[in-house]
């Protein structure tokens, strides 16, 4: 495992290009493009204002930088550094911006969600989509990039419009039986759209590509409902995490629940492996880790940590949420399937230090990782069942079915990792903190 040096970053905006050759990062108003292997600066672009959002186009030839305060989107080309494109929304304002799957259209959501403007880089045409819904995930593209689903709201009713991305033709327009649509997400096979309601109502609707309602699922009434959902990569399962600290898995044949995963504060099943992160005293020379990393230069001020296997029954640190506030920190907030469809990683927000890993083949709890600090984010390796976790300190944690390891990033000073991002080949991970980022290169023989 090798670590690169620290580079400046702002806004947690560090992204690998889809073809895996470049890494884009933002420093205030500058956009820096680096080569992935050498991290040399290949190109440097200057934008007009502080960049709030960047996105690579799907063919990795263009990158857009959105500046919401000024309402401007600037697009840069990697082939021709002289090429420039500036989209100014003016008084309409800008709230969100994204690429279309063909990499030639930009969808800007104006302020107050008045409309979505579709700017084309190929032609001079501009399209407007009225009444988009102001929700977290209102636009969803299918994985093959052919269709786009857009949530709309008219006359206090929710609608879904399906567009064909090649010519932006409206394919289907239908209403949904939701009170207040919260999000939409396509299944990876592009044939089923999951639509779920606000957290006041536990309701998830499944629509087919041609607009037919396939099924509705309601687990219970009155209590707070769905917090997060995730499709399995084979579209076989739909995992729904809710505020009652449970994950329910629906199967794609009958769209009925096949199992429920509970997240209690005490783990009693002896077959579950519980890894607990413990601080190692700095004087200990022999690094007794489950898979010892290569010799790293450890700084004086950060302590090493290792994983210990705790004996079941284990009781985890439980944080009682404040009852009066809205959006309580309770329930399953993070949910991710591994790319080989064998594991599901979840985080229960009132046990914020633990990551629960479920074995999907057996539909049982497999491993629980208990960290010292609260989990900030985790992401699966795009090639193999390997999970990278960061908890806001300067360590990165990797888990795979063979074991888990805690690695101290050998940096001077404070480096608090808030987010991470895998490279598409699974060979490297970008670790992002508030002001800096570094890239960690993993070797293939290492943690398998």
């Amino acid at each position, binding site marked *: 495992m090798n670590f690169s040096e620290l580079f400046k970053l702002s806004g947690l905006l560090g992204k690998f290009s889809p073809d895996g050759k470049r890494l884009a990062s933002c420093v205030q108003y500058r956009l820096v493009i680096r080569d992935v292997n050498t991290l040399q600066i290949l190109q440097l672009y200057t934008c007009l204002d502080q960049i709030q959002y960047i996105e690579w186009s799907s063919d990795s030839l263009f990158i857009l930088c959105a500046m919401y305060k000024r309402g401007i989107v600037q697009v840069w080309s990697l082939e021709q550094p002289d090429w*420039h494109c*500036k989209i100014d929304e003016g*008084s309409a304002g800008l709230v969100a911006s994204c690429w279309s799957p063909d990499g030639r259209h930009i969808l800007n959501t104006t302020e107050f969600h008045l409309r979505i403007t579709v*700017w084309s880089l*190929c*032609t001079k045409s501009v399209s407007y989509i009225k009444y988009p819904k102001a929700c977290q995930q209102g636009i969803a593209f299918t994985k093959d990039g052919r269709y786009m689903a857009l949530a709309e709201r008219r006359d206090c009713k929710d609608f879904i419009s399906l567009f064909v991305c090649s010519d932006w033709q409206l394919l289907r327009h239908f209403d949904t039986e939701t009170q207040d649509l919260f999000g939409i997400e396509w299944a990876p096979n592009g*044939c089923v759209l999951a639509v779920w309601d606000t957290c006041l109502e536990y309701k998830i609707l499944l629509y087919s590509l*041609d607009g037919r309602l396939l099924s509705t699922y309601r687990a219970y009434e009155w209590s707070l409902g769905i917090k997060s959902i995730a499709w399995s990569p084979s579209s076989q399962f739909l995992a729904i995490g809710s505020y009652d600290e449970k994950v329910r898995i629906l199967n794609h044949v009958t769209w009925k629940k096949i199992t429920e995963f509970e997240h209690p504060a005490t783990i009693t099943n002896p077959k579950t492996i519980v890894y607990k992160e413990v601080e190692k005293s700095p004087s200990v020379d022999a690094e007794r880790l489950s898979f010892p990393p290569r010799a790293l230069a450890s700084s004086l001020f950060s302590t090493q940590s290792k994983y210990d296997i705790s004996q079941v029954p284990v009781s985890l640190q439980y944080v009682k949420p404040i009852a009066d506030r809205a959006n309580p920190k309770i329930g399953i907030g993070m949910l991710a399937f591994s790319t080989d469809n064998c594991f599901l990683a979840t985080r229960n927000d009132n046990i914020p230090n633990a990551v629960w890993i479920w074995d999907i083949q057996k539909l049982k709890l497999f491993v629980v990782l208990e960290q010292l600090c609260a989990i900030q984010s985790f992401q699966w390796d795009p090639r193999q069942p390997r999970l990278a976790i960061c908890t806001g300190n300067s360590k990165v944690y990797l888990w795979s079915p063979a074991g888990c390891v805690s690695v101290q990033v050998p940096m001077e000073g404070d480096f608090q990792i808030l987010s991470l991002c895998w490279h598409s080949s699974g060979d490297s991970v970008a670790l992002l903190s508030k002001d800096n980022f570094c890239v960690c290169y993993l070797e293939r023989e290492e943690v398998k």
Partner: protein
Amino acid sequence: MGDWKTVTVPVLSSDSKNIFQYTSEKKMSPPSLNTQVLRLPLPSSKSMHTFFSAFCTEENIEQSISYLNRELTTLGFPSIYAESKGKELNLISVINCMNELLVLQHKNLRAQEEVEMQHLKLGSDMDHLQNCYAKLKEQLELSKREIVGLQERDRQLQSKNRSLHQLLKNEKDEVQKLQNIISSRATQYNHDMKRKEREYNKLKERLHQLVMNKKDKKIAMDVLNYVGRADGKRGAWRTDKTEARNEEEMYKALLNDYEQRQKQLLMENAELKKVLQQMKKEIISLLPPQKQKPKERSEDGPVLSDLEEDTGELNKENMWELSCETVREQLTNSIRKQWRMLKNHVEKLDNQVSRVHSGALNDKDVISREDHELETEKLELEIQQCKEMIKTQQQLLQQQLMSPCDDDTTLLLQDCYLLEERERLQEEWRLFREQKKNFEKERRNFTEAAIRLGLERKAFEEDRGAWLKQQFLSMTTDYKHSENMTTASAFLGSSDQDNRLMNSTSQQRKPHCTLSIPIPAEPCQTSQCISHNSSDAASKKPAGDKKPNQWEESDKEETE
């Protein structure tokens, strides 16, 4: 017991003054008729003496005797007089009477003792019973108190229970009320939300109008040059055709997905059916040949036989493909039936085993341990023999393959091997022929090169000869200008030589024509020339050699 009768002794005579009363032993008698009372309940021997003497004195003997006689006769004793009216005493009867009286006295004493004993016993019994009674009374009191206490507790608990029920009911009512409140509030909030949303929509519309009306020059896209489409094609107009095409594509995508899923499900189904069939076969094989089957068959008659036929049909392989309800049901039903039979069989075996453990042996069903061991040994021996046989057969087979044999089968086998070998040989021949061709080509090239070399050499020899001649001539004719001439001629000669070389090279190109052999003998005359020529030849040879080398290499390249 304390009531004693007092016997008042009747007055014997009015005259006697010694009238007394006979009192009891224990108590003082009630006031007597006469004043003179004889006292002492327990008369001592002395007092008895006085007592006895007091009854009969010398004066009233006759009276006392008659009195005694009267008493005795009333008591049933015979008279003490000798005769019925005589005054003489019958001594024998008196003694008998006395004896009788003594006996009576003894008897009475004994009876008294017994009575006293019984009295004591009864007294103690009474005490005992009194104690028991007292204790029982106490216990009764206690249990009564306890009962009262328990009743009290029971009452309290019941009241508590009632109160809890009441509480529960209240809670349930409250919950129901809260739910109603929630639902009503929810509807209220929804209504309010909708109202606010409508207002918000109106604001949005207004804002939208304003934004659009302003015709902000700023809202624009400033692009250096337009980029080509990602897929390289040109944009197309949106027409009905494209719409239809899009719909078609969408439906195609959906259908593909469904077909894939259906394929997967069919595969899974087929596998599961296979597994079920296998299970069925194995279950059937596990079940022992039951003798009761024909009985069952006869009982159930045509129904079972039909089922059996159907199951027989089911076992046919092509039935797997059908997935209609009835076939599926039949398969699962038959498996269930057979599984039940297997379960019964296993249970029976378990019972047998338990019976064996408990000691009750059944000769028919259970094989004794020694027999079992013998059988296993036999089987092991058989296995060993079979293995050895297989080994020997393998060896023989191998031997047969190795050595030639007259058998037809071995010939055939040999033929097969020969065919293989022949093919291999053919392959090798082909390769060999190719190589041969290549070698011939090379050889030809070499010969050509050699011929050319030879020609070159001949030409060179000619030149050399000519040059030598010239030299010789020049040497003989102009001796003075020899140096210059030689130099000039060297240059010239060299130039001539060059020219000749050129000619020779041009001659070389036609190997067939030039074969005018120059004077090969002449060059040996002058050593200088030889050395020169040899050096030239040497310089030429590598040049000449190079060419075949080059050709070799090129040939090599070709072959590679």
